[in-house]
């Protein structure tokens, strides 16, 4: 069997794998956004659970590419903006930055470590909330307050949720 023949045999399987990977790249953030807009109807405090952010961080940490991560974050952010009453681009900018920085630091840290995952998740949640507050005040002029204590507490919550969520997403990636 020549190398060319071997390439022909393996090529369709790779296309199917890539197609499944792209589907999951769409479905997972969709589920995350859907959960964010749907679950708080029944459990109000879960509105602080930023599943789209966690999906962005996971994508940036696991995929490694800063450009794809920032684009991925931008897409998720814009989708969030589309379902909010804010001007489109607020969450887009924040998640773009989160994707970019998460992909940047993933090169320097062992992201498979749960502790690192926890710390990075906590940090990016805090960064996300803080930067959103800055943008809201700077660009929109909204006089909203930043509750650092509450943000830290919910940062811990999101980091705690990120650990099992990242495991599930890793298994999905391995399955692909």
């Amino acid at each position, binding site marked *: 069997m020549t190398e060319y023949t071997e390439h022909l045999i393996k090529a369709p399987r790779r296309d199917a794998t890539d197609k499944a990977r792209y589907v999951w790249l769409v479905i997972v953030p*969709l589920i995350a956004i859907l959960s964010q807009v749907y679950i708080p109807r029944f459990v109000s405090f879960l509105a602080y659970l930023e599943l789209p952010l966690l999906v962005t961080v996971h994508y940036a940490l696991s995929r490694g590419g800063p450009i794809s991560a920032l684009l991925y974050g931008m897409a998720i952010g*814009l989708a969030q903006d589309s*379902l909010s009453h804010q001007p489109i681009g607020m969450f887009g900018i924040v998640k*773009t*930055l989160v994707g970019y920085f998460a992909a*940047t630091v993933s090169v320097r840290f062992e992201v498979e470590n749960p502790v690192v995952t926890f710390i990075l998740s906590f940090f990016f949640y805090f960064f996300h909330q803080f930067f959103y507050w800055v943008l809201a005040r700077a660009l929109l002029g909204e006089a909203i307050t930043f509750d650092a204590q509450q943000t830290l507490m919910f940062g811990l919550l999101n980091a705690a949720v990120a650990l099992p969520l990242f495991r599930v997403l890793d298994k999905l990636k391995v399955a692909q």
Partner: protein
Amino acid sequence: MDFFLSRYRSLTVLLIVIATQLLLIAYQVKTNKDVPLIRVWAVTTVTPAEQGLELVRRYTWGFVEDYFVLLGVRSENEKLKHENGTLKIENHYLKSELSTADRAQALSVFKAQSPSTTVAARVIGNGTGANSKVVFVDRGSASGVESGMAVVTPDGIVGKVVDAYPTASLVMLITDPTFAAGVVSQKNRVHGTLKGQGHSEPLVDYVQNEEPVDIGEWFYTSGDDRIFPKGFPVGQVRAARNGKTFKEIYISPSGMQGGVEEVLIVLEGVHQEIPEGVIASPGYKILAPPTVSSSDSQAAAGTTAAQATDADRLRQIYKQAGASQNHVFGEGTPGSKPPDFTKIPNLRGGAAPAGSANPAVPGQPGVASNSPAGPGGAAAPKPAAPAVPPPNSAPNKSTAGNSAVSAKSPAPAAPGQVAPASVPRPKPQAGTPIADPGPADGNPPSETTSAPAPKADRAAPSVPLNAGPSVPRVQTPASQQ
């Protein structure tokens, strides 16, 4: 430039993306316009999934919720069933308590009004024996109960105590075959012996066939048995027929209507009078007597209690006639001349006495207020309107022709004249309580002749008519009304 882009490609892309989004935000803020295209895409993508999620939730979570709700409904249904049963039992209990309270109130009222000393008791059990009609009550010798005491209810007699124990007593009901008590009928005063028959209707025995007993007539205790005080109601006659030797009179006992639950044991009995008139059946409410109107009260002002009936007034007329002739009733010897009653005016009611221009004028004392003159002046005197003429008043000429007593009648006899031995009794005529003037020889009726019994007026109890002083009416005990 190319070097910068290739070396800092990701940073360049980041800046471009950030700048683009900043421009987008600036545009939206500056123009206050939205970017509907992006929103439509997002909403169109998300909302169907959201609807599906809601649909799934509704049918899954709703089903689970309904399941648990139904579980709750089932347990609640069982709880309500249990509560309903409890309430039913409580309702029956309260009804029973209410009935008991009514009976207890009747007992207390009767106890307060009855002159006899009684003690209330409750039936706590029946005696043994198929034909035995005995019950146990919860009062015994410790409460002063002794054998032979009467047991009654406000409606009538129930039985008598046959054994008294410290805490309970054995009461023989009037339906027991060995029970006996002396009774008397209300209307005809027929005495008899009440005997239990083992069923619900005891028998009144030893009543002669000739004795009149009416259906529905009340029997009362006569007090002859020295157990039951006189005057307690026994029951009404349900059936009365002639027997071989005595009448067979069956009584519906009034004291045992609806069962016996609470009774009164008569510790010290006081005889009472047999009430007159028709008494209402137990359980029926009777209205108070109507109030006397002013005209009636004025008309009755000149009437004494002794003149309440036609017989009383007639007797008063004869007395006045005798007094006007100086005759003293009861002192004449046989054969002496009686008073001349033919000179009594207005005997037929048609002749008004002198000084009474209009006998039917209401409001005048001694004048009938409600007795219109009939055709020809034959007015029937009414009980409440005694037309007592003056002793020497002349009859009204206009009505003298219709009067049985006219001015042509013989002169009154002098005192001391011997009355005839045989005096015909005046024949009572329906609607006319006037005695026949007497034989043609002019002999008036003697003083021993009783006036015809007037029709009994239900409003005014009849008074026994005799020559002596009027008998005071027997007052019906309030408890037996």
